[in-house]
């Protein structure tokens, strides 16, 4: 399936190697596996606790999914309405078809403001388009102000989780990093001391920067209001102090009405940080007095994603990361193995759709990065059926990037299975499996199996030969 004429997404949406290779490298890092198991285990338990508190969670979830589906079905209307309201409230709206266009717009606005540095609120959209790299290339410094994003930036690392970008680091590693970069050698690994070091470093940036760049969790079409949900207060500093505020917003983030926030401001914090309510929710409508406000609406493959009826509900995602924390694959590999800034189960369905499987074959392995255990669907606050979508995208994956041997093998198998007598004769060959045990090296895919698992002891006869011989007589 290809959707001609739809621009596909670009930016930090794919890795340089396929998932199995990146995953194997990540699995070798025992420190990483320990950090991840502890962190995801803690958030999972916290989420489960606060979700169980709400008697109407299932209905909130249904409402969340329904509102998002309405948004996706009427996106054209809601986006134009949002543009009208933001413009009427003194803001300026820009439309960016892809990552390069969005970066160009932001760069132009920063230059126009005469700034050589910007402060940033944690934002997946700007990570997606690689804004920091684009600004750096133009000589403009972008300072991440979310603590975890700051850690990632100082370490010249990449985020590995949607909510907790530095989840792969523990505090001993962070202490070492801070002593090397922003604090003196006397800094301890105590959480309070680390936070204080970051606070001192960031305070100067908040006061000095004339431009802030943010993302947004929600945008209300009815009122033109944008909302940022955060925990540290750095977001509010960025949104209020600088003279120019630029917000980069994925077009699927729009909500029809103010009242819809009621649903999402319950679903998001409970699914995300496992809190009843997040500490800071900032909302603003257009330009505040004395401030210049720009909204950049980002497509970057979202319209192309919308075109696939079996894949479009991935755009319901509110970036809570509950599916990452629930995923047994993510827990063991971490986020970097997925290549894209969107890791975990949602990344495995979103990244290949945004880039297009044909346009960027590097993401063809992502739909297979799952055992289809279904834990992601269970926790998703907007009920995205990720397992079914993975199966659907596997079909698109092999259509875009053909795997000839596999296709031929499975076609031959299906041909055999389609005729019962033929299939019975083939199954009888299983008893020759004992011969395989004599081989010094097994052929693939048996070799991949036998690297860590013994082959089963082959039976002397198939079940159905037994049945015909004596079983049916009972």
């Amino acid at each position, binding site marked *: 399936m290809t959707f001609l004429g739809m621009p596909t997404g670009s930016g930090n949406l794919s890795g340089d190697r396929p998932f199995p290779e990146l995953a194997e490298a990540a699995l070798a890092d025992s420190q990483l596996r320990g950090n991840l198991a502890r962190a995801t285990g803690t958030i999972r338990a916290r989420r489960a606790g606060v979700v169980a508190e709400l008697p109407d969670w299932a209905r909130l979830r249904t409402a969340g999914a329904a509102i998002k589906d309405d948004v996706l079905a009427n996106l054209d209307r809601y986006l134009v309405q949002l543009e009208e309201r933001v413009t009427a409230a003194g803001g300026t709206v820009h439309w960016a078809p892809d990552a390069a266009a969005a970066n160009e717009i932001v760069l132009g606005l920063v230059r126009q403001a005469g700034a050589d540095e910007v402060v940033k609120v944690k934002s997946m959209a700007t990570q997606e388009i690689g804004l920091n790299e684009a600004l750096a290339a133009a000589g403009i410094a972008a300072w991440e102000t979310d603590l975890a994003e700051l850690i990632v930036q100082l370490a010249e690392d990449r985020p590995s989780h949607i909510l907790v970008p530095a989840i792969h680091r523990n505090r001993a590693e962070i202490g070492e990093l801070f002593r090397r970069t922003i604090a003196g050698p006397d800094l301890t690994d105590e959480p309070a001391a680390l936070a204080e070091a970051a606070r001192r470093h960031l305070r100067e940036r908040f006061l000095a920067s004339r431009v802030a760049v943010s993302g947004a969790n929600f945008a209300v079409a009815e009122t033109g209001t944008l909302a940022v949900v955060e925990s540290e207060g750095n977001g509010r500093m960025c949104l209020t102090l600088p003279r120019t505020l630029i917000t980069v917003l994925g077009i699927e983030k729009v909500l029809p009405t103010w009242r819809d926030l009621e649903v999402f401001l319950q679903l998001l914090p409970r699914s995300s940080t496992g809190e009843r309510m997040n500490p800071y929710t900032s909302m603003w409508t257009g330009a505040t007095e004395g401030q210049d406000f720009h909204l950049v609406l980002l497509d970057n493959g979202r319209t192309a994603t919308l075109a696939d009826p079996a894949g479009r509900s991935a755009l319901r995602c509110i970036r809570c990361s509950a599916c990452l924390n629930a995923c047994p694959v993510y827990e063991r590999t971490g986020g970097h193995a997925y290549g894209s800034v969107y890791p975990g189960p949602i990344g495995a369905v979103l990244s290949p759709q945004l880039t297009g499987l044909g346009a960027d074959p590097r993401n063809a392995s992502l739909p297979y990065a799952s055992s289809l255990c279904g834990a992601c669907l269970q926790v998703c606050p907007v009920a995205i059926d990720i397992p079914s979508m993975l199966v659907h995208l596997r079909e698109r994956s092999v259509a875009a990037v053909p795997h000839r041997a596999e296709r031929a093998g499975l076609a031959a198998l299906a041909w055999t299975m389609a005729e*019962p007598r033929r299939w019975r004769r083939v199954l009888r060959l299983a008893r020759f499996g004992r011969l395989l045990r004599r081989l010094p090296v097994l052929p693939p895919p048996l070799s991949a199996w036998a690297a860590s698992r013994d082959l089963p002891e082959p039976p002397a006869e198939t079940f159905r030969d037994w049945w015909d011989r004596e079983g049916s007589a009972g």
Partner: protein
Amino acid sequence: MRVALYVTCLVDGLAPAVGKATVRLLRRLGCRVEVPAGQTCCGQLHINTGYPAAALPLIRNQVAAFVGYDAVVLPSGSCAGSVRHQHAALADRAGDAELAAAARELAGRTYELSEFLVDVLGRVDVGAYYPHRVTYHPTCHSLRLLEVGDRPLRLLRAVAGLELLELPAAETCCGFGGTFAVKNAAVSTAMLADKMRAVQQTGAEVCTAGDASCLLHLGGGLARLRAGVRTVHLAEILASTA
């Protein structure tokens, strides 16, 4: 009641003891068991690997093979999940309304073994005797697709002589996942390692589950470790008598 056993490829070719145990158990509970000769594969392997078109002839074959039975019983949550949750939708997408209707009708009388015993036969105590320390791993598709809940545990608790030990982090996937086990062998093995550690922590002699596929993976890993823990399908435990 005329019951058809849908034996599944893995049980037929690699674990016939599971099929024999299922027959023994169902007969003991008064069912007339038949094994329709026309059955082959549910096609889940093809669907989940990205080749759903190849599964269509298998679904056609399947609905023909099981016509006329009161109930179709599978000793597998995963294959039952495919019959119940994938086939009709796939036929719909292929534009074959007749096949979709037949697949829906078949799905309505298809049961995973523990569902059939508890919901259809109304039996929790099946008269089994199995004097061993046992831990139970709920397989993902039985747990999350079919939502069998605690049915297997209730059946196990009613087995005479059996000591049931709780598996830590029981609901975490064992890492099998069909072709996932070979396409992402390293991740699959990492998940398996954690599951085996949990199984060993229980001190059980036997790890049981409702899917031969997951048990093949788990048993293969435990055998490689010489862990001294055997994997035994739920049907085999429930079929055992004194």
